[in-house]
């Protein structure tokens, strides 16, 4: 007797949508293990998590605030992975965007907000896109693996930022790695009173719609999907695969850069070393949970944000370390993978 995988006939659409939901439930259930190990009371822990993230108006809006960068990096990963461009460099692209946004913001003092804010966004988008173009060029021109190059560039950009924050971009007179504040005009306006709900969140939602539009309605979206599914056949059909990969990288990097823009222009107003607690890497898990679909990615980003924000209050109330958020994040990715598999195959017991 042994177990094998047998292909199953395609599941109807509505089940496909439920799969991420199922994965989330399984993940939450499994996360009881580390919570218990940390000595946390189960009911109290989950309650404080959800209340901390969704219980009050302020908490809910804070969750939205944290969801914005996750949405951007999630979209960055989803958009790239769809074309099988393994962009693991969202973290570095985010930093590039943050640096560009900070520099532009610092020097935009004399501009009106209507000009400064878009300028900051464009600068961040372009910087992120340019940083993502490097692994794309290395892949298309030199056949270098995109996983390794995009990863290594994260570290390079991290050190570049270190250099800048201890050097040219350092707040004069300070010994901390911190930039001067960006001009008032360049800051993202807060849209809802008594909260930090800012323009960046709306931009993230808009980005989701734009990515959806590109994917499903445009010729480029069709080409990117073809390249992701079978680059050889795509080339056979006359699609310029290298051009598609490069454009995908530019957009993907730009989206990640926007995450950096948001954090700089809406949350911290300075450039800091720890401007990103790993949003770039989380974006990958976000994208997978969202099945690489723009709407799914946004919803998944919201879920991750619930966990991130909720873990803080859970930690305060029950003493479970905040890192439970990262544990849940990693678990959800693994659970989602298995769930995706089970939509295509079922486990069969075979008699010998």
């Amino acid at each position, binding site marked *: 007797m*042994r177990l094998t995988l*047998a*292909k199953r*006939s*395609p599941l109807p659409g509505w089940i496909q949508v439920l799969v991420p939901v199922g994965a989330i439930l399984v993940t939450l259930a499994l996360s009881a293990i580390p919570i218990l190990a940390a000595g946390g009371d189960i009911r109290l822990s989950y309650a404080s998590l959800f209340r901390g993230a969704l219980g009050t108006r302020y908490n809910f809006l804070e969750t939205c605030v944290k969801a914005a960068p996750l949405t951007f990096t999630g979209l960055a990963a989803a958009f790239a992975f769809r074309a099988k461009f393994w962009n693991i460099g969202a973290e570095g692209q985010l930093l590039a965007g943050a640096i560009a946004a900070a520099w532009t913001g610092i020097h935009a003092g004399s501009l009106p907000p209507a000009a400064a804010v878009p300028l900051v966004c464009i600068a961040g988008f372009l910087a992120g896109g340019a940083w993502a173009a490097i692994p794309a060029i290395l892949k298309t021109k030199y056949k270098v693996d995109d996983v390794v190059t995009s990863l290594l560039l994260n570290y390079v950009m991290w050190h570049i930022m270190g250099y800048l924050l201890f050097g040219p971009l350092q707040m004069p007179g300070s010994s901390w790695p911190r930039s001067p504040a960006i001009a008032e005009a360049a800051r993202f306006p807060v849209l809802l009173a008594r909260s930090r709900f800012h323009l960046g969140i709306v931009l993230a939602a808009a980005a989701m719609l734009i990515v959806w539009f590109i994917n499903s*309605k*445009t*010729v*480029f*979206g*069709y*080409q990117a*999907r*073809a390249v992701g*599914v*079978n680059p*050889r*056949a*795509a*080339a*056979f*059909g*006359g*699609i*310029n695969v290298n051009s598609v990969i490069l454009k995908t990288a530019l957009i993907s990097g730009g989206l990640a850069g926007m995450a950096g823009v948001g954090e700089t222009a809406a949350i911290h107003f300075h450039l800091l070393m720890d401007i990103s607690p790993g949003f770039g890497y989380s974006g990958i898990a976000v994208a997978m949970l969202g099945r690489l679909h723009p709407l799914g990615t946004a919803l998944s980003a919201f879920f991750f944000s619930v966990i991130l924000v909720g873990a803080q209050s859970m930690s305060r109330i029950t003493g479970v370390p905040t890192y439970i958020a990262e544990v849940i994040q990693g678990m959800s990715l693994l659970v989602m993978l298995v769930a995706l598999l089970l939509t295509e195959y079922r486990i069969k017991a*075979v008699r*010998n």
Partner: protein
Amino acid sequence: MQAAELCEKKTPPAGSPSDGRNSPFVVEMCSIRKTFLDVTASSDVNFTLREGEICALLGENGAGKTTLMNILFGYYAADGGEIRIRGEKVSFSSPGDAIARGIGMVHQHFTLVPSQTVLENVVVGSSGGRFFLDLSAARKKLLALQERFGLSVDPDAPVWTLPIGGQQKVEILKSLYRNARILILDEPTAVLAPLETKDLFSTLKTLAAEGCSVIFISHKLREVMGIADRVVVLAKGAVAAERDISGTSERELANLMVGRELPERRYQSVKRAGNTMLEISGLTVKNDRNLHAVRDVSLKIASGEILGLAGVSGNGQRELAEALFGLRSPVSGSVSVDGKQIPTANPRAAIASGMGRIPEDRMTTGLLLELSVEDNMILENHCRFRKTGMLDRPSVGKHADRLIDEFGIKTDGRYAEARTLSGGNLQKIIIARELSGAPRAVVAAQPTRGLDVGAIEYVHGRILEARNNGAAILLISEDLDEIFQLSDRVAVMYEGRITGIAGRNETSREQVGLWMSGVESTCA
């Protein structure tokens, strides 16, 4: 005794000595059943093999021959039925079990590692539990086997340097090294030239004389008549008939394979051909190993003409087709359609020149299996449906529906994922995509490989139709029957060069066979 009767007998009565050991049958497969998803590959198949005989397993593509043998080899597990080796019931969960019982299989796709040497390929996995590789002992054993069975290959040569015939010898040696007494060969002549086939057949006869039993899977009637002692015909997953070779004929077997009377294949007379439409000049192309695969090939095909390029796979046809498709950059030479030279290594340019292209590997090169039928239809002309950067889905849908209807593609609608379609219907998608636009030239590489008879007839019909509409057609095929049925002129490719070219009526299969083996060449 027929297999079905034998299987009726089942186990000997209790108390009697196990009859099995006196059985003249080395292999008995009874009531074998196998389904994949909802496709029945084998239904209630009974198959037997006697010691020292060469038994052919005949059937068209998709009849279930490979599946049945994969079950015997332990690669697949049957869903039902029983296998007995020399009278003893066996149950295989992996090829390792079958090998332990003396069964060896030479698959259609070689199981060799090109970068390793012959010796390493033969020895892998069978060092009898010894930790360190003892290549010298293995070499001795291998050389002894080579002597005994007349299969000579250099043990230290990396496999990729060997010709296909040599690689096949390594495959056979692999089985013999593991003391196989039952050898299964799956379509072994598909990759061989006629002379190499003769070589293989004499090897098989030697094996049979030494007491080995051979199962020979093929869909080529002529060869089966030439080598087998007995033939089992499979059709649609079930045994259609069993015959001794002496008691049957090609015609009877052909009818049994398809289950109906086949009309005589008639060569279709040609309309008067026009001007040169597709011209290939001095094309030289390198393969993945940076060796010359196509050497200075020049061909001219007129509008309304089919030039059949015959030749065994591996003589440069793949690289030639890829160069024509724009997937491979030639070292030198040019391609022109209707007098206009096409930029090379540019699929877009090839498409724009009005070339219909049917690739050899339809799944890996021609189709996007995870996408819908509709998305596959527009792979080449999707830009035509562009409206301000957006894809005009309604028009795309209409286009796809029209083609599905016109070409009779069996699918659950245009949104169905391509990989749910059968091989024949997948090829129809490609045919629809490539031939519906009234192409000026068509390059078709192995267009009917792996298809069942119905699909083959369909593809032939469409190719002829394209020709009658004025297209210049280059038909690259390793199937001589197909070449002779369809072509107006026949050319042969051997080791990258054209070794012979003649009008179809001015040459014969024998002559073409000689050209295919490089024995003769009418070209300088």
